[in-house]
């Protein structure tokens, strides 16, 4: 992970930078790239594409969960930070909670692994749970929670180390639409208040347009960036945006850009 870290100075306003990154699997299949991507500090970017277009792979490369076959992945660290302050938080497609541990212990995990002092950890855990609106459920076990609440716990765990960058891999894909809309709004609130950089992977056009400042459309086999859309709309976005004609227009454009890649996928 050492080579992926850079100091703030040489990075300027860039939080994540991918240069000519490819990922080739052991069986010789090129899953990704070459891919060039820059995400600015505080930006909300969505990677949108069909299943198997390598968007999740790209996210795992940024997180350091996988290593690129070629190219360079760099993630900015805040200058002078303590070791404990992990630069990225990751939210998986599944809640990925430890079923044997309470909500509190699940959220505390990243702090425990970095040997944070108990008092400080308690405060951080409480704050993170409050941010996702689950302060009262600290002692519950994951199985006692609904799908949406589990996802909130997962989000709290990603926030507990106060990372600069939040990586989210189709986090709401398995939720019902009502829960999903609510979590979309809560995520936007968190992003505005906490000023995080968010890289959000999704296969939903509507979700990507609603959430992002920038939507990056990817094609599959191998995963490449095919087009980019900047979603300009007055802040703060609220539920009204979903009903606006501007929103519908963006969705139409993005869908059109996506359709060749769908056609390609079905033809393969």
């Amino acid at each position, binding site marked *: *992970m050492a080579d992926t870290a850079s100091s703030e100075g040489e990075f300027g306003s860039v939080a994540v930078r991918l240069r000519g990154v490819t990922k080739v699997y052991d069986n010789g299949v090129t899953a990704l790239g070459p891919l060039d991507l820059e995400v600015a500090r505080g930006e909300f970017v969505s990677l949108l594409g069909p299943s198997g277009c390598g968007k999740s792979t790209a996210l*795992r490369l940024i*997180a*350091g*969960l996988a290593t690129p076959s070629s190219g360079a992945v760099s993630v900015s660290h805040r200058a002078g930070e303590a070791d404990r302050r*992990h630069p*990225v938080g*990751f939210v*998986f497609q*599944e809640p*990925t909670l*430890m*079923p*044997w*541990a309470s909500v509190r212990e699940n959220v505390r*995990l*990243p702090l*425990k*692994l*970095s040997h944070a002092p108990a008092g400080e950890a308690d405060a951080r855990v409480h704050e993170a749970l409050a941010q996702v609106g689950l302060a009262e459920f600290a002692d519950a*076990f*994951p*199985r006692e929670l609904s799908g949406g609440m589990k996802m909130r716990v997962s989000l709290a765990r990603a926030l507990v*180390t106060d990372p600069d960058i939040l990586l989210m891999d189709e986090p709401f894909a398995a939720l019902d639409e009502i829960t999903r809309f609510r979590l979309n709004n809560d995520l936007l609130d968190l992003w505005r208040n906490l000023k995080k950089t968010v890289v959000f992977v999704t296969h939903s056009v509507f979700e990507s347009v609603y959430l992002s400042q920038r939507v990056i459309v990817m094609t599959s086999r191998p995963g490449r960036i095919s087009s980019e859309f900047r979603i300009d709309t007055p802040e703060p976005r609220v539920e009204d945006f979903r009903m606006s004609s501007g929103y519908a227009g963006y969705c139409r454009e993005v869908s059109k850009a996506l359709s060749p890649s769908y056609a390609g996928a079905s033809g393969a």
Partner: protein
Amino acid sequence: MSSLPNLGRILLPVIVLAAGLVAWEAVVDVNDIQPYVLPGPLLVFQTLIRDWTVLSESLGVTLLTTLEGFVAAAVVGVALALLFNQSRALEYSLFPYAVILQVTPVIAIAPLLLIYLPQQTAVVVCAWIVGFFPVLSNTTLGLNSVDRNLAGLFRLYGASRLQTLRYLKLPAALPYILGGLRIAGGLSLIGAVVAEIAAGTAGAGSGLAFRIAEAGYRLNIPRMFAALLLLSAAGIVIYGLLALISHLVLRRWHESALGKEN
């Protein structure tokens, strides 16, 4: 949570047992079968009470052997699985021999062990051999069944090997380990009995299995049945205890320990 199914689960087997005993007693009485061929359940029960001093002492011996074998099986089984999990080379070197030890019938090994080891040790070793493999293989399975995303999460936050083991792998493997222990408990009893029969020595320190063999030579069939009854009861208690422990440990989170609804 209606009470009828719960009541039925206890009541129905008891009714079957009572019916079986009555039928057994009736068959023995009507056909006038001699006790040295087939004793009735009443006689077996009387024998159990009359011979209690001898039988209870032997029960104690067998239970102690079982316990020693079980504890050894649990400790060695879990420890080996942890070592295998940390080192592939060690696993490849030793696992085949654990399998060989498991597939060779213990009744065939027992006479050899009795030649090379003091009798009491040999009997415990037999109980251990039968018991340890389920613990080893179940623990190994559990340690390898860790959720891949959770493992990724631990890597993301730079968890050390020890932390991953302690906070992730061991808790994830716990239901499997407890399942292995549940099997090992019963098997340790079987191992102890097999070894006692193979050892076949008389005297003060002899277990229940020896009492059965000895009573068989003397055509004391009621005592054979009484000893057998005690062995079954011991097996049931061991299984029940381990199942209870497993339930208490897992009840907060594991599917196996939760109610049907939800």
